[in-house]
């Protein structure tokens, strides 16, 4: 048997990694259906046959489920196993999707989540027999408060955006309790798109403030905008350019002098954890994305966790119930919080996700600081190696991610999207394209601390190779990917005229 090398010839010489994409195609499960196929065989009835429609009533019975696929067990197994091989996952290679912090989900998290006694607990169990679970929630809160420098927490929200809304509702309740909820929330133009949406749902008006030429908040501009109508500034730090707001303390002071609050979107906490604490630089309310910074899985839309952390003054407004430790050391759920904004999620949020985050934090301990430093180091290593190959629109020190633009490749008609698609041929998940919006043709790369120097080098070589292809053979890049089962998808048509349902009369030709 010979070892199959993964080396390939590229425009910049022999490079070390190119993974072939699994190319077996797979139809829909509906297309495999044929009458009479089934995945189980029941023994003959040994009781009298009963007419279900007579026993239950005609309106509650039907002879067949229309369109329900009839398939055998092995067909079901093969179908879903094949589909599972189509996924690109962090377990297959680097996933530099900037802003998403696609770090490795350590196996120890999964081990802990499957422990008997945790996996089988039910949220309706009385507190007396849920002491272990309540302690896990309480300890996670303590850890998150210690990492962020905040005073009180809720673990209920199950996504970053739900955390944003929860935080804003608490800001509204807090200001209302002082007599005036105010009208507007300021948001920098580099913000995540969910920020303005959350603000509007919380009943505030959005006012955009522009970044200065260095990609930072212009404090003069902020002073001018920060009227008595402003409830809060919603800020991501480091910003979506991967740059730390150098004047964050001054920004907080400007707001506080006007009676406004500072909300921090913790999406980029992977650049700060263990190094600096938002609570120490003036943040009043923030959320964390446990599925980013604290290594819980990014599922297809969930389950996630977006805990919200606040300063002392906002504590009375936390969602109920609040996990507390009583004087006798026992843990309990406190429902008697008259100023609470109410419940934002059933029970205590996604417990299984919260549990994994605690496992991660306890496994690292003070090592969280090194994880942060390694994340910053990896992103700067990639930046240094790709500077001169790709345009760097904001030349400030990068934190955990680096934002290039496609300005140089554009001259050959090659866009950030084309380069991202071509990366698939080199065995990588694409970086984030076209975000942040303040960078035209943005290429946002976040390696996270999970990657070794070797994997970073594979990525750098792939990017250099694609940059060379953009000059010598731009068509190759513009028509990528070439190694996948299906080539470039028509994303515009898919968005304009979405087809969301398979219908036998329209598809089904095999």
């Amino acid at each position: 048997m010979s070892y199959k090398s993964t080396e390939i010839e590229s425009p910049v010489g022999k490079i070390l990694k190119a993974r072939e994409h699994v190319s077996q195609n797979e139809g829909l499960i509906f297309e495999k259906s044929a009458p009479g196929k089934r995945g189980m065989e029941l023994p003959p009835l040994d009781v009298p046959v009963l007419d279900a429609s007579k026993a239950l009533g005609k309106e509650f019975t039907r002879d067949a489920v229309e369109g329900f696929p009839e398939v055998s067990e092995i067909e079901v197994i093969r179908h879903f196993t094949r589909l599972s091989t189509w996924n690109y996952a962090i377990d297959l290679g680097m996933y530099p999707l900037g802003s998403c912090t696609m770090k490795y989900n350590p196996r120890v998290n999964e081990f802990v989540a499957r422990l008997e006694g945790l996996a089988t607990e039910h949220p309706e169990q009385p507190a007396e027999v849920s002491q272990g679970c309540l302690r896990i929630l309480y300890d996670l809160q303590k850890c998150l408060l210690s990492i962020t420098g905040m005073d009180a927490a809720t673990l209920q929200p199950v996504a970053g955006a739900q955390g944003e809304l929860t935080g804003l509702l608490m800001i509204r309740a807090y200001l209302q309790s002082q007599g005036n909820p105010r009208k507007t929330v300021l948001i920098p133009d580099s913000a995540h798109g969910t920020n303005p949406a959350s603000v509007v749902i919380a009943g505030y008006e959005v006012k955009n403030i522009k970044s200065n030429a260095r990609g930072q908040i212009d404090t003069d501009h902020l002073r001018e905008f920060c009227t008595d109508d402003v409830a809060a500034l919603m800020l991501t730090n480091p910003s979506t350019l991967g740059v730390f707001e150098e004047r964050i303390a001054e920004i907080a002071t400007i707001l506080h002098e006007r009676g406004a609050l500072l909300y921090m979107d913790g999406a980029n906490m992977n650049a700060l954890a263990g190094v600096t604490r938002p609570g120490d630089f003036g943040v009043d309310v923030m959320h964390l994305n446990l599925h980013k910074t604290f290594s819980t899985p990014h599922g297809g839309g969930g389950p996630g966790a977006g805990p919200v952390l606040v300063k002392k003054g906002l504590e009375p407004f936390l969602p109920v119930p609040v996990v507390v430790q009583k004087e006798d050391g026992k843990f309990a759920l406190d429902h008697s919080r008259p100023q609470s904004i109410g419940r934002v999620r059933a029970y205590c949020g996604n417990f299984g996700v919260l549990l994994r985050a605690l496992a991660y934090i306890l496994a690292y301990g003070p090592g969280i600081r090194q994880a942060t430093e390694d994340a910053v180091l990896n992103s700067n290593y990639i930046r240094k190696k790709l500077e001169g190959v790709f345009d760097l629109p904001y030349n400030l020190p990068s934190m955990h991610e680096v934002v290039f633009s496609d300005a140089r490749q554009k001259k050959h008609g090659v866009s950030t999207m084309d380069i991202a698609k071509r990366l698939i041929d080199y065995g990588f998940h694409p970086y984030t394209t076209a975000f942040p919006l303040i960078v035209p043709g943005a290429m946002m790369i976040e390696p996270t601390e999970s990657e070794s120097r070797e994997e970073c080098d594979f990525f750098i070589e792939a990017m250099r190779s694609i940059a060379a292809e953009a000059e010598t053979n731009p068509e190759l890049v513009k028509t990528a990917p070439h190694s996948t089962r299906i080539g470039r998808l028509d994303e515009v048509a898919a968005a304009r005229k979405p087809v969301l349902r398979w219908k036998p009369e329209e598809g089904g030709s095999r």
Partner: protein
Amino acid sequence: MYPKDYRYTKEHEWIKVDGANGTIGVTHYAQHELGDVVFVEMPKVGAQLKARQSFGTIESVKAVSEIFSPVAGEVIETNPALADAPELINKDPHGGAWLIKVRLADRKEASALMDAAAYEAYIAGQAKEHSA
């Protein structure tokens, strides 16, 4: 490229004033920056708009962007063609892809906005900033 009888905003909307009414759309520069437009969200006829107030959104493959009214006024018509053919915004931003018509609160308000020459200078400056 940019019609001489239109007025323009820094947010890349245009307005064409015709007596008591104005027609509003987004500029060629805006559609180019947005990329392929896939969906347009419009206000209701009868809505009262303040100047610089957001009155709808344009969704492209890249992002969702708000559209701001260049002037104050009441919405009297929205472009029915855009619901089925949002791509018109990419093809004919200054003509067939107008977004709304408004009854102007103040006929003179639009004259304070940029004319075509000033707008062209403005977007040239923006492009320079991006490549710097």
